[in-house]
């Protein structure tokens, strides 16, 4: 083993500039997916941390002797939502809420810093009137999920426990509407748990986005380790021919790859930390920005990711060595090229069948994990069927193009469809992702931004008597107002232009005893989620495009190094660099453009099926063709841009004397 270590060290040290370039490509090829996976897991962790930070606000029935009563409700404030926690001590030692130094007395109100900022001078008075108390303190960070949260803790001496026969099931609050919780006796505040204020769709969406980004990342991780496999294979084959055993060659390859992978993992962690800093400082999700520490995955999760990345990288490199161990002479002669079989299409058919089968299961059981797993299988099948597309595109290119670029690009695609598709896997996957998101975000419900009407909600059909009663009472106060009664019995009062919504709200609540909301406020959850999904679509698409462009560049650079002598010889004979680079760009752009169009469509189909799986009664909205075309163009541009990243490596290869390569 000592000799192997020493030999591996000599090979790395003595390899010169080419070995450094090879190693750099492996490092970058591993770093990008590691960074993406850490970011995805970090975002999911962030949502979980946020849920845990909010958990104390939801009353949890006392398991020991109850010491306090608690109710949670949401109230609107100028189009935003305030989380109100009302408390009343029923014993002398009630639990101290997080972020406060003591339990609130009757009439005392603690508010979050963001809420205090949102209350101007008049608003302060109106708000105090509304919640029935005086603001006496500020909530500390431990009480909040993020800095922008509007939260108030109110000491309410009039709370009485909800009678047992009137208790509502917990699930009724899912969806995070404005319906208050029951008043429950509590003995402590929960430290973790699900929160009805954070729609389940967020977690589902985070997992789906994760599956969409992580699956190509794992594929790229393996590709990163195999980037320079052919050249390394030839070098190790020479050692094998010189008498090295199969085990020694395997150990050398493992050591060499592990060295590059460890450097790549280190770089990936650094990039992920920068990414987390950007996400936490710039990108609001779920109504606010994450704190940096919320996005840090647990040490166990980080260890699993990093060790897993190392194992995948080494395993991929060793899988590429099979030929060296068995037929070293064949590797030295570069005699073998793999051609993808049509059986790969079967894999895709099986994957789609499995995915479609999860939909009725998910609809029946509500187990979204199964649906997401099915989706992940479909995504993974793309990299299996991709090479067949690449081969076919090569065949078509040769027949349709006239110049040398098309000929060389087409032949390269046909000669090595698996290798050609590998660096562009990410871009094809992003087409699928974009198609998926285009359809799912287009299908999101329309949200109202109307804040010129206050609606008295009856919380259910059949309460028309309420609406009629309210109408009579309000008609005297608002003789000029227009009333609009909805099919569900809700009563909308159109406010005159420029009316003070908060003042009118308080006035109407005083008359009817019911708190009215604007249409925009009633749609708060939908608006928040729709805005977040649109923002998240951009983030996911941008990350995937960067990842894919970088992978294309790294893969293309590796291919330049593999064929350095041939490219240099062509250049010496007068072949312009533009022709050589042009052939590479075509080689990437052709399969990408066509496959993107196909996979945008398939992605949209998967998006539609997923939505149907989650929400069976939704009306699917087909996205515009212009958006779909934009995705295809963006993918093609990223492919060409990614390939152009390899131009400096090509120039370096061409300016080096042939004998020195």
């Amino acid at each position, binding site marked *: 083993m000592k000799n192997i270590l020493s030999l591996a060290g000599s090979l790395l040290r003595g390899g010169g500039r080419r070995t450094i370039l090879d190693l750099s490509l492996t490092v970058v090829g591993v770093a990008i997916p590691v960074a993406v996976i850490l970011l995805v897991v970090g975002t999911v962790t962030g949502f979980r941390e946020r849920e845990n930070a909010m958990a104390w606000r939801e009353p949890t029935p006392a398991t020991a002797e109850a010491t306090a009563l608690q109710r949670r409700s949401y109230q609107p404030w100028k189009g935003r939502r305030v989380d109100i926690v009302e408390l009343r001590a029923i014993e002398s030692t009630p639990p101290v809420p997080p972020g406060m130094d003591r339990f609130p007395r009757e009439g005392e109100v603690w508010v979050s810093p963001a809420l205090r900022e949102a209350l101007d001078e008049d608003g302060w008075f109106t708000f105090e009137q509304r919640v029935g108390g005086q603001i006496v303190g500020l909530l500390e960070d431990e009480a909040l999920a993020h800095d922008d949260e509007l939260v108030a803790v109110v000491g309410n001496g009039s709370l009485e426990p909800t009678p047992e026969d009137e208790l509502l099931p917990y699930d009724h609050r899912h969806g995070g509407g404005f319906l208050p919780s029951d008043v429950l006796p509590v003995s402590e505040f929960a430290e973790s748990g699900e929160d009805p204020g954070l729609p389940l769709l967020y977690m589902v969406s985070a997992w789906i986005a994760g599956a969409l980004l992580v699956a190509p990342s794992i594929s790229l991780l393996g590709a990163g380790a195999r980037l320079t496999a052919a050249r390394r294979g030839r070098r190790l084959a020479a050692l094998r021919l010189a008498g090295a055993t199969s085990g020694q060659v395997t150990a050398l390859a493992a050591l060499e790859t592990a060295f590059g992978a460890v450097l790549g993992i280190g770089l990936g962690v650094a990039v992920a930390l920068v990414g987390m800093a950007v996400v936490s400082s710039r990108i609001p999700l779920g109504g606010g920005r994450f704190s940096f520490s919320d996005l840090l995955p647990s040490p166990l999760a980080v260890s699993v990711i990093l060790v897993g990345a190392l194992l995948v990288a080494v395993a991929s490199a060793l899988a590429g060595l099979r030929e060296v161990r068995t037929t070293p002479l064949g590797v030295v002669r570069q*005699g073998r090229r793999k051609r993808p079989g049509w059986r790969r299409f079967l894999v895709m058919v099986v994957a789609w069948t499995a995915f479609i089968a999860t939909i009725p299961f998910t609809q029946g059981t509500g187990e979204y994990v199964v649906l997401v797993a099915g989706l992940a299988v479909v995504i993974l099948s793309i990299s299996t069927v991709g090479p067949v597309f690449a081969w076919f595109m090569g065949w078509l290119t040769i027949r349709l193009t006239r110049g040398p670029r098309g000929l060389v690009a087409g032949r390269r695609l046909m000669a090595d469809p698996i290798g050609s598709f590998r660096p562009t896997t990410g871009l094809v996957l992003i087409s699928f992702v974009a198609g998926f998101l285009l359809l799912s975000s287009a299908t999101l419900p329309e949200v109202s931004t109307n804040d010129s009407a206050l609606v008295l909600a009856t919380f259910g059909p059949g309460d028309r008597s309420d609406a009629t009663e309210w109408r009579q009472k309000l008609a005297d106060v608002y003789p000029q107002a227009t009333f609009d009664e909805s099919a569900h019995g809700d009563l909308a009062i159109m406010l005159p232009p420029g009316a003070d919504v908060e003042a009118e709200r308080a006035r109407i609540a005083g008359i009817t005893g019911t708190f009215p909301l604007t249409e925009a406020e009633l749609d708060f959850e939908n608006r928040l989620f729709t805005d977040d999904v649109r923002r998240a679509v951009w983030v996911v698409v941008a990350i995937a495009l960067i990842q894919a462009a970088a992978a294309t560049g790294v893969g293309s650079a590796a291919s330049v190094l593999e064929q350095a002598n041939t490219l240099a010889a062509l250049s010496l004979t007068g072949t312009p660099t533009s022709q050589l680079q042009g052939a590479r760009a075509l080689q990437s752009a052709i399969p990408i453009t066509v496959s993107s169009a196909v996979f945008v469509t398939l992605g949209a189909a998967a998006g539609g099926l997923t939505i149907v799986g989650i929400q069976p009664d939704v009306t699917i909205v087909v996205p515009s063709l212009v958006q779909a075309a934009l995705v295809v163009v963006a993918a093609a541009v990223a492919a060409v841009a990614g390939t152009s990243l390899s131009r400096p490596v090509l120039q370096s290869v061409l300016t080096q004397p042939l004998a020195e390569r």
Partner: protein
Amino acid sequence: MTLERPVLIGRDLTKRYGDVTAIDAVDIDVWRGSSIALTGPSGAGKTTLLHVLAGIIRPDRGTVALDGVRIDSASDRERSRLRRRHFGFVFQEGYLVPELTALENVALPLLLLGNPKSQALREAQRWFEPFGIGGLEHRRPAELSGGQAQRVAIARAIVTGPSVVFADEPTAALDSETTHRTMGLLESAVRHANAGLVVVTHDPEVAARCDVQISILDGRLRQAA
């Protein structure tokens, strides 16, 4: 009466790499229909002289003229164009494009010159039978023997009808029997095209087949026959 003159003329050619003088005040003439062997130990300056004559690198001093036109002072782009149009190259390992078929490899220089694909493939096809590689048109380089690959490389060098063919150790990777056949083919192809041939070689037998043998030592011409 028109006086014949060399197709390629090099005068006072000098090239230095740092403190090392790779070639030093070399004068050389290449004639159509004749061959020159450049021999000498490794590092003597043979390949540098070939690269200077082919316009791949510029000399520090001296001139190179192709059919009376200076090429040493031309731009990189112009010299690339001249190489495509007027020179052919054969390398030690052939350096065929591995993904292209043998036929496409031979047609590649014609395509680069802007010929239509069908015409380029038809023109390339003409060389396969005379070169003894008929039937191998659709094989890839990896499916060819060393000798077959080198014949394809020679066809690629000659297909555009070049003025001069440069061959850098064209037979170094071949056995003696194949070397003999390959050199015979290269000579006849060059004569047929009425081109000049410049061969860099370590092999005395290959050198002996050429019309002129030039030995280089420490960048200077030592002997001419």
